[in-house]
């Protein structure tokens, strides 16, 4: 233990080490604060939905109540859906800044609505967010390199290595002690602020422990690399240069190459094609006999088939039916698109097993539920909710029941858990 204390004192006398540890502490805390601020902004935006929504629906209810037409109610009412950030989201914001976490949908064709984005500044999104995941994946390795690249070579260059190797508890033991000490300090600098922030945010203890282990594993990987390079008995400078080059390749170059490769391997017919096809199908309904559309609709939704036949005048149930038929006509394309997205995600995860930088990023974002998989799961929730919305309005439309003010409150509410 005394030896460890001495080593620590020795380390903290180095200006470089103190500056590095101090800087990493500041960066970690800043990134955690930035992430928590962003998440609390998102939570506030979600919390502000009901007030805005009540005002909006209230105004629609006021004039729909005169005619009590369920079609107008369904046509004009937007219903909010949202994706509450997980407690851990602050650590890895992932795609939450570019994927909409609030989306309002109507009971009309969903495929024309579900790909809509929210307002964000693309120039700000381009460089990526400054969050804990960034500090860990991008910056922490540089600090490992700065502290560990000259553990042996530095002593050798100072002419002390032979003496140190000859001491009891010297040599390999000394060098192991120094490596572990540096690792422990870096781990503490990253892990302690993270654990505090996570505890404040209400992250489960097992998740905190898992991420602490993840941090340690990632630091170990980089320390291991430093040790391997150190074995080559090059000069300190050569060690530092080759480690920094490795960092560049592993953290910057290979992931971007991976991105190109994935998008090449799994070409996705742009989602725009779904929207184009859906719009054709929906608008085509105006040019064919309405009975044909209704026939198709009733075939897949027999529970409404005993509804009264259409008269000469416009009826909203036909309008809603052709929107649904339009959605159903592109369901193959949607499935294909979805499969493409999922296989892209799968390959990226696979890459994570080979490239620690990607591995840590994917693990963090998937634990924080801010990755593509979480986005797709959220889309599924919206799909379910939209189905309930449709059924709710159909209950009035196809049974010709009046839709009064009170009925607005009966509309199904979005529920993330379902």
């Amino acid at each position, binding site marked *: 233990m005394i030896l460890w204390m001495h080593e620590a004192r020795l380390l903290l006398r180095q200006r470089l080490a103190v500056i590095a540890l101090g800087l990493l502490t500041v960066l970690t805390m800043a990134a955690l604060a930035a992430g928590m601020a962003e998440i609390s902004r998102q939570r506030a935006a979600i919390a502000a939905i009901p007030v805005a929504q009540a005002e909006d629906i209230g105004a629609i209810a006021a004039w729909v109540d005169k005619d009590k037409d369920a079609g107008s109610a369904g046509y004009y009412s937007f219903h909010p859906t949202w994706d509450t950030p997980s407690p851990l989201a602050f650590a890895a914001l992932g795609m939450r800044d570019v994927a909409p976490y609030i989306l309002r949908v109507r009971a009309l064709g969903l495929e024309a609505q579900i790909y809509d984005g929210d307002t964000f500044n693309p*120039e700000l999104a381009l460089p990526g967010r400054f969050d804990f995941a960034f500090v860990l994946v991008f910056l922490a390795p540089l600090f490992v390199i700065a502290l560990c690249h000259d553990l042996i070579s530095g002593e050798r260059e100072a002419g002390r290595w032979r003496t140190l190797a000859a001491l009891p508890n010297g040599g390999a033991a000394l060098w192991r002690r120094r490596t572990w000490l540096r690792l422990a300090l870096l781990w503490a600098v990253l892990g302690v602020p993270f654990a505090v922030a996570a505890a404040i945010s209400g992250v489960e203890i097992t998740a905190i422990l898992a991420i602490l282990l993840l941090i340690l594993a990632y630091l170990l990987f980089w320390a291991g690399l430093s040790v391997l390079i150190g074995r080559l008995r090059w000069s300190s*400078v050569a060690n530092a240069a080759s480690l920094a080059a490795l960092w560049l390749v592993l953290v910057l170059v290979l992931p971007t190459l991976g991105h190109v490769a994935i998008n090449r391997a799994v070409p996705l017919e742009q989602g725009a094609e779904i929207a184009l096809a859906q719009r054709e199908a929906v608008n085509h309904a105006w040019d064919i006999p309405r009975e044909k559309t209704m026939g198709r609709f009733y075939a897949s939704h027999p529970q409404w088939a005993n509804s009264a036949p259409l008269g000469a*005048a416009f009826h909203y149930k036909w309008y809603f039916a052709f929107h649904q038929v339009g959605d159903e006509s592109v369901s193959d394309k949607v499935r294909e698109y979805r499969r493409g997205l999922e296989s892209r995600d799968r390959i990226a995860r696979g890459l994570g097993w080979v490239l620690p930088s990607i591995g840590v990023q994917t693990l963090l974002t998937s634990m924080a539920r801010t990755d593509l998989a979480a986005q797709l799961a959220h889309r599924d929730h919206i799909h379910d909710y939209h189905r309930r919305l449709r059924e709710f309005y159909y209950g009035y439309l196809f049974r010709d029941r009046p839709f009064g003010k009170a009925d607005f409150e009966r509309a199904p509410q979005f529920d993330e858990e379902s």
Partner: protein
Amino acid sequence: MNAAALIARDELRLMRRNRVAVIASALLVLLTLVAVASSWSHQRGIEDLRARHQHAAERAFDAQPDRHPHRMVHYGTFIFRPLGALATFDPGVDAFTGNSMFLEGHQQNTANFGDVNQSTLLIRFGQLTPAFVLQTVAPLLLIFLGYGAIARETERGTLRVLMMQGATRGAIVRGKLRALGMVALLVALPAFLGLVVLTATSGAAILPTAAIVLGYGTWLLLWVTVIVLVSASACRSRDALLTLVAIWAVSVVLLPRVAPDAASVAVPLKNRLQTEVAIARDLRRLGDAHDPDDPHFSAFKRSVLQRYGVTRVEDLPVNYKGLLAIEGERITSALFDRYSGASHAAQETQNAMVRAVGVVSPAIALRSLSMAAAGTDFAAHRGFLEQAEAYRYDLVQRLNRMQADGVTYADDTATDAGADRRKRVGARNWEAMPDFTYHAPGGTALAARALPGLFVILGWLGLAAALLAFATRRMGERR
């Protein structure tokens, strides 16, 4: 041969003998080539897809059967933003903005289907483009090759030997600068050549290309100067290396991420839900088309009746419903413009804040320069959105006008079995509607937008050069 040239030749020979340096340089050139090739084919793919979609969308619009004009207002049209040739070099925000837009009546839609929404998280590591290689990777290679240029000589005591042999301090520094400058040129050459070929074959404007070449040339020259400066000031080459890597990490990796975060906190954007609710609220105040007693629309009706000198809308020579649609669209569009204008202005403010940070981080300045010249920055995207909105408004109002003039009020309000047929206007009308053409900003405008960034980098180069001149005078002194 003068001393500086000799020293440069010597330094280059040393680099050539260093196997790691040679491999690293070769890898970088290879990476640039891969970036150019992949970026080029990616852009071509996007370009083809957009052209195909645009064509299909236009054909579909023209091929619509007889329709009630208001149906066409809702049928709307899809437009796609074509990218300039330089987007291959720096695609900028394209992957984030999306590039297709659905235009219809009563709604101002956002651009959809950005690559980012169908990509994995890897996209957040950066995109492999020639711009990325020159902005981010090339400086680090120069650091590896140049950190020891002078520090090595100081450390080993060879600097004094050189000086004793009659090489002046200036000559030594100039020689090292020249050697590293040659490497920088070699590194930039593939990307620059690709850029020139791109410009020549696509008929793009020369000025933006010149701005990009000048900007990136200055950027690399700035790094060469900084590297020699740090190398001349450091006592040990390891200190020089660590200092340079730290400078690089802060200015190229850290600040470009921190600055946008700070800007987005300082100027929050209103989200879509709040905007839509606010627009609906304003709309109710301005004129509620659903309210038969609404003061605005009552006044509108009176003024129309007065203008035509009749007492009932049924007696109007035009279809009153069409006039109502025109008036309604005018009101909603004005609101849309106001709200999107406010949001765009807020985003411009955010970007201006980031650019202000660019004064201390030339990497940010270079990034804005590059995107501005390539026409892939927010300003260019905003230009597209505004043109799209102008086109949408024009198209919708033409259709509304058609409803006013081509469909009678009696038919439009009839609900008998044959009414649907009588409400429709001929299909040949759709072909007569103008297609959307995007007017890309001209070369001079793009180059002009790149100028501020260029000035910042040039300023930094001047500062670094001055510091180097100062450091040169003190070089080799015992410290």
